[in-house]
């Protein structure tokens, strides 16, 4: 699979209700091997894509742009890979008891 097949897929909960779209995919780069393991998917509730990632960073400047872009991406959240049941051509399906995490980068 290539990344663009995953981006913008609808995200469905366990009963098939649409809860958003995949806006990005988070990876962890191993310090020793350099391998990039998938950690989870970022889900946007209102927009199909986010711009500049202000909702994932602590930067607040320029203030007006930062506030606007955070507002535009409000409701975004991260779901870890353990809570993703499967990836289908018509959407990403989550487990019943999936947890929402802050999209902020560590």
């Amino acid at each position, binding site marked *: *699979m*290539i*990344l*663009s*097949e*995953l*981006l913008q897929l609808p995200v469905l909960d366990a009963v098939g209700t649409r809860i958003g779209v995949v*806006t*990005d*995919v*988070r*990876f*962890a*780069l*191993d*310090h020793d091997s*350099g*391998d*990039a*393991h*998938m*950690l*989870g998917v*970022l889900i946007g509730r209102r927009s199909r*894509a986010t711009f500049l*990632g202000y909702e*994932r960073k602590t930067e607040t400047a320029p203030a007006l742009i930062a506030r606007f872009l955070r507002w535009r991406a409000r409701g975004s*959240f*991260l779901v*870890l*890979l*353990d809570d*993703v*049941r*499967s*990836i*289908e*051509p018509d959407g990403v399906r989550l*487990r019943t008891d999936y*947890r*929402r*995490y*802050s*999209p*902020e*980068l*560590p």
Partner: protein
Amino acid sequence: MTDPLPQAPSVDARVVDARLHLLDRQVLDVEGDPVATVDDLEIADLQYGERLPDRPAPTISALISGPILTTRLFGGRTPPGRLQKIGWDLVADLDIVFTLEVKSESLEVTWFERWLASRVIGRIPGGDHDPE
């Protein structure tokens, strides 16, 4: 007002978001010469319909470069044969740009540039050496 979401459990690794940190980055070879830009990423062994909890976490296996601008704008998919891959194992460093551990001449992705240099540019008088 809703409660803020909890932070995800921390991991002992560098965390990056593919679209934010990896796509559209320039790729340089070991000597700093530009090779390509990252248009997409190949995720190894991830198939539609697969139950993800039953398997190890998928990994990035290659950087992909190719003519994908039109599919980004208008949808559809670029034929796989037109996408050039650079193995993730060739990546030496990731910063503002990707740096590879090999020279660009050894990569399939630069075949057109090499073909153009030898068959066209090299036949123009003065075109087979650096400017003096």
